[in-house]
């Protein structure tokens, strides 16, 4: 039992054809399978970050003062700027998905480029925040937590201030890693999209990376208030 080869409809204009994998009966079955699988993968991401959020909430409860004063040392303006950048990139990504569905090759590429630019902006801001903390001696992943004069007075007398900053670096670090992976994936979409690989007949990867990108954005929407505003 092998299915006969199915080729999805390819629009005019130099687009590449898509052949449905041998074990699927229809292109719709292939698309829906990929989409369901990707939603399940996103559920694993939510559970993974869920563990981190649970740890954050627990220690926030145990050391409220540490979290309050630690959070006050983060720059909420930079955090807000990053939130704006990621939200914008979610919009450009959604426009990119739409462009791929409408077989608009040029628009697809430019929307995706805009998305990568926003993401790069996010990473630059994150770099500024991290390096500032590092120079003031509270980049604790080195195992040495020694705040300099700039921060020491604010952290005076707090119980385990490094715990707050370690959670901050772990959570935003793992999130930042996801942004980087997303940038690589989008760069690949740009490269293949420029070749005409994605069109109304087959745009699965654009759709899936789009979903991924929205979840990365969504996780930041929770991280920002918890780390910068709530404490």
């Amino acid at each position, binding site marked *: *039992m092998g299915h006969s080869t199915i080729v999805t409809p390819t629009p005019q204009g130099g687009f590449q054809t898509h052949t449905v994998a041998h074990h699927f009966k229809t292109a719709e079955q292939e698309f829906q*399978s990929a989409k369901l*699988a990707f939603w*399940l993968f996103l559920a694993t991401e939510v559970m993974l970050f869920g563990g981190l959020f649970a740890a954050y909430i627990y220690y926030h409860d145990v050391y409220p003062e540490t979290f309050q004063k630690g959070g006050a040392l983060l720059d909420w303006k930079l955090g807000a700027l990053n939130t704006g950048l990621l939200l914008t990139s979610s919009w450009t990504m959604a426009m990119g998905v739409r462009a791929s569905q409408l077989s608009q090759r040029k628009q697809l590429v430019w929307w995706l480029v805009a998305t990568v630019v926003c993401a790069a902006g996010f990473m630059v801001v994150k770099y500024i925040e991290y390096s500032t903390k590092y120079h003031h001696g509270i980049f604790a992943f080195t195992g040495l937590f020694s705040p300099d004069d700039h921060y020491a007075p604010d952290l005076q007398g707090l119980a*385990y201030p490094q*715990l707050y900053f370690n959670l901050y670096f772990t959570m935003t670090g793992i999130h930042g890693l996801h942004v980087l992976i997303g940038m690589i994936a989008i760069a690949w979409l740009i490269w293949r999209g420029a070749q005409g690989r994605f069109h109304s007949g087959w745009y699965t990867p654009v759709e899936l990376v789009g979903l991924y990108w929205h979840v990365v954005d969504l996780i930041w929407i929770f991280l920002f208030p918890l780390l910068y505003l709530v404490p």
Partner: protein
Amino acid sequence: MTTYVPDIEKAPEAGSRKEPSYLDVTKGFWSWAGTLDHKRIGLMYLVGVTAAFLCGGILALLIRLHLWTPDGAIFENAVYNQVFTLHGVFMVFIFIIPAIPASLGNFVLPLMLGAPDVALPRLNLASFYLWLTGTIMAIYSILSGAVDTGWTFYTPYSLQTQQAVVSMGLAVFTLGFSSIFTGLNFIVTIHKMRARGQTWFKLPLFCWAIYATSVLQVLATPVLGITVLLLAFEHLYHIGIFDPAHGGDPVLFQHFFWFYSHPAVYIMILPAMGVISEVVTVHSRKPLFGYKLLAFSSISIAVISFLVWGHHMFTSGESEFVMLAFSFLTMLVAIPTAIKEFSWVATIWGGSVALTAPMLYAIAFLIIFAIGGLTGVFLGTLSVDIHLHDTYFVVAHFHAVMMGSTALAFFAGVHHWWPKMFGRMYNETLAKISAILILVGFNVTFLPQFAMGSQGMPRRYATYIPEWQIYHQWSTVGAVILGIGFALMLGYLIHSLFAGRKAAANEWGGVTMDWESPTPPNLYNFDEEPVVTGELYDYGHGAKH
């Protein structure tokens, strides 16, 4: 209803097939190492997990031999700690979690759905290589200094020990992703790849069990992933999240660990229940009693399993209210579990039972699972658990549900689908002898452990007081009987590959779609695309469709 007699004379000849079997269609190393065929990936997993079972089993025998005398017969105490840790890691993470889903599930699930493959064949192969990578990392951890924390890696000890906790943690992380990929793939396969006419209530129960298992794999395993990742960070950078010296809380580690590892024991037992459902119905030639209840009990076990992790921590410091809630929820698991046990027995009752080798393994499962399940209720009871916590009673209970139930169901399934996998039959007399040896050996090993555990023998100790020597010696004798049973099994199974008689097209007279494919199946499983029209498990007229 009469006993089914396979038509051995009509065993398919090589020339009479429409297409070559999946075993013959291509040859050579890369046709296996790079295969996307779910059946070949299933077989690679089968070889892999069996090898892991062999390693873990040899370690278990060494543990039992060491405990022959009260002062310990073989190892230094520190080495003993490493040996039981390795036994646990091998058996839990490398053998038993992938054992049934990734080997039997991979082989059988698409067949039962009438599908040519799983939905995501590449992810399936990736899962196998992640498993292989994780296993190699675990072996590296052993060679680079071993781990002596027990398979649970409790903090703060796992942070103080100078051993290879980081690489072992990353090995577990990798194995976890392998497990997630398998589960994710199977959920999509069951949703999207079913044959025409196969509604949800025409799914064989093995598929329901695999579905429930997969949900747990997808939702629980990421939490283990982040936990071992944080443990590695803690070990390397002292981030403080689990280390009391830096403001962390070791009990939080236990919560995180058991939030995964309790559902994980259902990742192990649920597919075993699915195998038993199939074996019991086929070898009794009777539809399963209470099909819908069996299906929903799998789902409800999966749901409840997320809500009971705290029962591992009754002595770790929980509020009384939390302990009561966890104790109550733990008792709830007994309901769907008992439904299953009764349904299987009711299926056998009045059936036309053939005492074949797979059926003997299934009956051994029913006996030992009753013991394991009931002692679980003892341990879920708060006051009793305080007394039994961390004793051999827990060890014996755990092994009754894991080794005596899951591993036995795995072997029941291996014997059941062996003719379908390889087109060859093993020596049934030897298979029956080994099933009986394993049933006897298991009980001789673990009943004394229940006894000495109830008297207070702590688990994980390298030495013990002389009063318990007789129990330990019986237990060791039982372990040796088990070892003989498994060695015999390995022998006749390998022998059958080369010299076994050709299996009939439908060796046991099964009526689910896995038995409708050619034996062994084609590369894409079926000669023609199957369509489901009749009832499930209909033995009345000999054929379903």
